[in-house]
């Protein structure tokens, strides 16, 4: 040992000692803080792992049907799981999802905006908190209960109050043709419009509340009425955030499954094309919910349903990334100001 020691230069010795202590230090800190950070960071990376694995696995599961049908999977109308006659075209359901989501936005967004304006700008402070809470409770009601209520209650409201007058007076217009039955694309869209109200109105209210008071004061000082102050000073200022809220609502509408499944009537194939609002239809999510358990594992049927799920995944991803970016930008703006 001593012999070895003699051979080491002073410099090497120094290096050895510092390395030794550095390693000791590292060992201790790995045991404590660093280990802790590594564990928590690993837990957070689970989120990215889940997202990545989800995209990969679902694409992988859908690959057989993509390979077999190619673009026809997106543009085809036929949906037939019978062996030997298999055909899978997702277009009617894609259009079904677009139509119901559009109805949900057209009806739900103005109401949500009205609710948000009332809660943020008009309501006396004593009823503000309880009312916001009641609206938030709408979001807590499980989807399947909306569906149950939709099938046994709401369906008849839609049939008697909206569909019957529509078909009587406007039945000659193609999109209002058909027998009022209550289980229709219109019912699906309307129940979605109810379900997006809590999401959209909560985010809008938050955005409106973050608008600085000087915006309102400036409008008032120019002689604006209350509505004019809201329109000019508040709404135009909060536009980006409101758009973010609407896109978030769209995301909810696109992915919502159970309630729509129960009231939309569940048509299949070309008849599911949303040519009339009063017709039975089908969305991508409702198709998956309806058929998943009946799909024969040997056929392409599960793969086709997974393929529809992949389209749904991509649309949700796109919509939500857009919404998050918009809302983040508004938040940044709020931080800067």
């Amino acid at each position, binding site marked *: 040992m001593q012999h070895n020691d003699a051979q080491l230069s002073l410099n090497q010795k120094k290096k050895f000692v510092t390395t030794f202590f550095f390693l000791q230090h590292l060992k201790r800190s790995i045991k*404590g803080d660093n280990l802790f*950070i590594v*564990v*928590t960071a690993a*837990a*957070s990376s689970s*989120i*990215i792992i889940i*997202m990545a*694995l*989800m995209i990969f*696995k*679902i694409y992988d599961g859908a690959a057989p049907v993509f390979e077999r049908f190619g673009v026809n999977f997106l543009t085809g109308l036929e949906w037939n799981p019978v062996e030997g006659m298999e055909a899978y075209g997702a277009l009617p359901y894609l259009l079904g999802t677009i139509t119901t989501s559009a109805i949900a936005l057209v009806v739900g967004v*103005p*109401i*949500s*905006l*009205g*609710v948000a304006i*009332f809660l943020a700008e*008009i309501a006396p402070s004593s009823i503000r908190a309880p*009312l916001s*809470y*009641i*609206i938030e*409770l*709408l979001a*807590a*009601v*499980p989807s*399947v*209960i909306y569906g*149950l*209520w939709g*099938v*046994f209650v709401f369906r008849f409201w839609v049939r008697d109050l909206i569909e019957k007058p529509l078909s009587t007076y406007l039945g000659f217009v193609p999109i209002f043709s058909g027998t009022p039955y209550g289980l229709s694309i219109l019912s699906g869209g309307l129940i979605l419009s109810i379900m997006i109200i809590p999401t959209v109105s909560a985010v809008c209210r938050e955005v409106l509340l973050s608008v600085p008071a000087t915006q309102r004061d400036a409008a008032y000082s120019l002689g604006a*009425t*209350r*509505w*004019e102050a809201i329109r000019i000073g508040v709404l135009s200022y909060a536009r980006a955030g409101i758009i973010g809220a609407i896109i*978030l609502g769209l*995301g909810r509408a*696109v*992915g*919502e*499954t*159970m309630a729509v499944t*129960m009231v939309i009537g569940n048509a299949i194939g070309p008849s599911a094309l949303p040519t009339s609002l009063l017709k039975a239809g089908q969305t991508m*999510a409702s198709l998956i919910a309806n058929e*998943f*358990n009946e799909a024969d594992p040997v056929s392409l049927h599960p793969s086709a349903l997974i393929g529809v*799920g992949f389209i*749904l*995944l991509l649309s*949700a*991803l796109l919509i*939500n*990334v857009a919404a*998050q970016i918009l809302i*983040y930008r508004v938040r940044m703006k709020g931080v800067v100001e």
Partner: protein
Amino acid sequence: MWSKTNYKIRKFKDRLIISLTVLCVILAIIPLTSILIEVVVRGLPAISIEFLTSPPGVIGQAGGGIANAIQGTLILIGLSSLIGVPLGVLAGVYLAEFGDNPFGRVIRFFNDVLMQMPSIVIGIFVYILVVLALGRFSSLAGAVALSIIMLPIVVKTTEESIRLVPNLIREAALGLGLRRWRVTLSIVVVAAKSGVITGIMLAVARIAGETAPLIMTVLGNQWFVSSLFEPIDAIPLRIWRLALLPYDYAHQQGWGAALVLITIVLVLNVAVKALTRTKFSGRVRV
């Protein structure tokens, strides 16, 4: 003269729009009121000891209950919390305490995206990941799906409530010579406890009512289960199946099950409200 009528028009417009916003609020509340009334009025007659303690009877004959669905929902909530809560709390701790870096921002972004992911897509994912791998529908698969739904909610609420803990507390603890991990776990997380619990309860309320991902993971079952590797029932799944049956008794049982489910969900939500209130008084004390 002209300006006077103009002012009247503007005043009228103002009144009109403000009454329209009130109308919007009323329109938004009608469905909630109707749902609550219908669930209580139609569900209450279905509730009985038998309904709550026995599994479903023969299809097409009245009788039987939802006891196995209640068992299933409780098992699924327990199992998915077992997976989702520790993971979510740890991730939330990371984001709040060490997450001010690009990695943290990426995680936060994808957490928000995952939170809005349609639950049926998560169901498909877990079907491929767990059901196909094990070769059978199982409560385990359902728990994995529900924990993925739960995870982002727990992460977000944990992060937000830990961020509310004042830095003074951290500095005081570090000043006493405690290590960072010790400060975080025994001081900061404990101080943020009620917020974290609130988030967990909200997540539980959310997964208690999830149906879509259960269709392709747990399938449903007529009987009680004794193993985690067999199909299991859940209240929302049972409501769906009952609503699809063409029998009046089934519909009534569906409403009864809905009453049980909505009670669980609303009790959790109201409890959260109560908890947050005490949290605020707690914050003043701190």
